[in-house]
């Protein structure tokens, strides 16, 4: 004789299990951030944020890494944004299905799935060695730019698609050309959505380690030009933690890193949310 559980009972059991697993997941995720913050907040001080790094990170602050991260990220975004937004404009406004569109989309989708260590290898051999840019802010940001192009393409594409067709028709009926319509109607309307993509790209660039450690290097000096080597926050944190240089400083650096990234992603989320409410 087999024992069968009725549908009502199995429904209740399933519900409880699903709820428990969801709660565990959320707790784990919060625990990770909470644990870093709990140990890291004590390390934060004005001095930590504005002092040079001394004795490989055992003493002093993280100012060179903050500035290095800023340079690398800003430069990456400056390079990637026109390429990503341009691609998205072309995809939505100039292609009507067809092979060309499929090829371009496929390229973006595949590039999005490439792991960061592959970007690291590529940036190392292409930018650092072949183009002789050395370990530098420029090599790092070019590598990151390639990495975040798909994020910007995908988000901008959705945003541009969401602009109602009637907007374009009104522009054409007033005698606007295609380029004018894109420049004066489509892009301004989809701007919040496009910005979301750019900001998500910023978040990805700031948190990246494997792709920048072999392209921007890990020099602790204060960067002076785009040809200086630098150590971004994520790389500095990685080296502090892995080589056991200073756990206190590692917690402090991680806290700064997480706060920046949560803030950046939160801004991106809010922007997208407001944009979606307006056009979907």
């Amino acid at each position, binding site marked *: 004789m087999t024992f069968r559980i009725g549908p009502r009972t199995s429904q209740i059991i399933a519900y409880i299990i699903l709820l428990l697993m969801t709660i565990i997941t959320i707790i784990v995720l919060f625990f990770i951030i909470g644990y870093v913050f709990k140990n890291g907040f004590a390390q934060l001080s004005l001095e930590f944020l504005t002092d040079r790094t001394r004795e490989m990170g055992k003493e002093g602050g993280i100012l060179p890494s903050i500035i290095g991260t800023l340079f690398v990220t800003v430069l990456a975004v400056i390079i990637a944004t026109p390429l990503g937004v341009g691609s998205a404009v072309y995809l939505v406004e100039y292609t009507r299905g067809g092979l060309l569109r499929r090829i371009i989309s496929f390229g973006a989708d595949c590039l999005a799935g490439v792991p960061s260590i592959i970007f690291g*290898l590529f940036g190392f051999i292409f930018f650092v060695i072949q183009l002789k840019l050395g370990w530098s802010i420029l090599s790092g940001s070019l590598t990151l730019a390639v990495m975040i192009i798909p994020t910007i393409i995908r988000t901008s594409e959705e945003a541009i698609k969401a602009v109602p067709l009637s907007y374009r028709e009104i522009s054409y009926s007033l005698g606007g050309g295609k380029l004018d319509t894109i420049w004066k109607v489509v892009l301004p309307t989809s701007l919040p959505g496009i910005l979301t993509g750019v900001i998500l790209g910023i978040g990805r660039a700031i948190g990246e380690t494997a792709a920048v450690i072999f392209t921007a290097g890990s020099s602790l000096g204060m960067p002076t030009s785009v040809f200086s080597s630098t150590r971004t926050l994520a790389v500095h944190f990685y080296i502090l933690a892995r080589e056991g240089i200073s756990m206190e400083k590692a917690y402090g650096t991680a806290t700064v890193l997480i706060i920046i990234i949560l803030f950046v992603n939160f801004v991106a989320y809010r922007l997208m949310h407001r944009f979606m409410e307006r056009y979907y």
Partner: protein
Amino acid sequence: MKDKIAEKLLLFIAFSAIGSLLLITFFIFQQGIPLIFKIGLSNFFSMHWSPTRGQFGILSMIIGSLMVTVGALIVGIPFGLACAIYLAEFSSKMVQKTLKPIIELLAGIPSVVYGFIGIVILVPFIRTHFGGPGFSVLASSIILGIMILPTIVSISYDSLVAVPNTYREGSYALGATKWQTVVKLLIPAARSGIVAGIILGMGRAIGETMAVIMVAGNALKIPHSILDSVRTLTSTIALELGYATGDHRAALFACGAFLFIIITILNIIAIRVTGHRE
């Protein structure tokens, strides 16, 4: 005239993604593949990785990568699917609206942070409670499993929500419970999205580098149990690229080429399964 130039320029820009992909493929292969021919496939797929003696066998790392990836899926799939099903079918709009963005925000946490948590909490925990060095297949699997959760939750959730409501109504009208509807109707209907989420998560686990280096122990031998140290393809590249020269560096690119092929195949399957964008 201006419109024509703009269109040509945009077309050129639009090839930036696929162009970069080709450039990456070219350079990784150009650096790595000649070495494979030089040393022969049997050396490349052997067990012995000893760069100073000209032995570049990556088999133990392939097995290492495979073990931690399977481990990550064992941890990530049940929890990821449970979250997705709970959020999509069993929770109120309020809960959905709060938890979904939180899980997605957490996808942005850098991988080094996960690795760090592994070092300070998970590794000591495994060492004291299960034995072994702590740096292990188990630690890597758990950390990677957590890291791929947001990918699995997000894509599975979207495909569950995309199942038309008429399916649910029809099922309830026949007297089925919510759980029966989920198992018999919604999961099969959302299958392709769920599979795509899992494949993308798998790609992320295989390709993850920094978090794995920090918790895997990186010993160059095939682990006998899940408590043993393990070395993956990605960690070998990252650990040795800094000082490798000549054939050794080429061998790391060959590792990269192998990894790149595997990941690209996974990506293509995921894109195919969802019929993305079209």
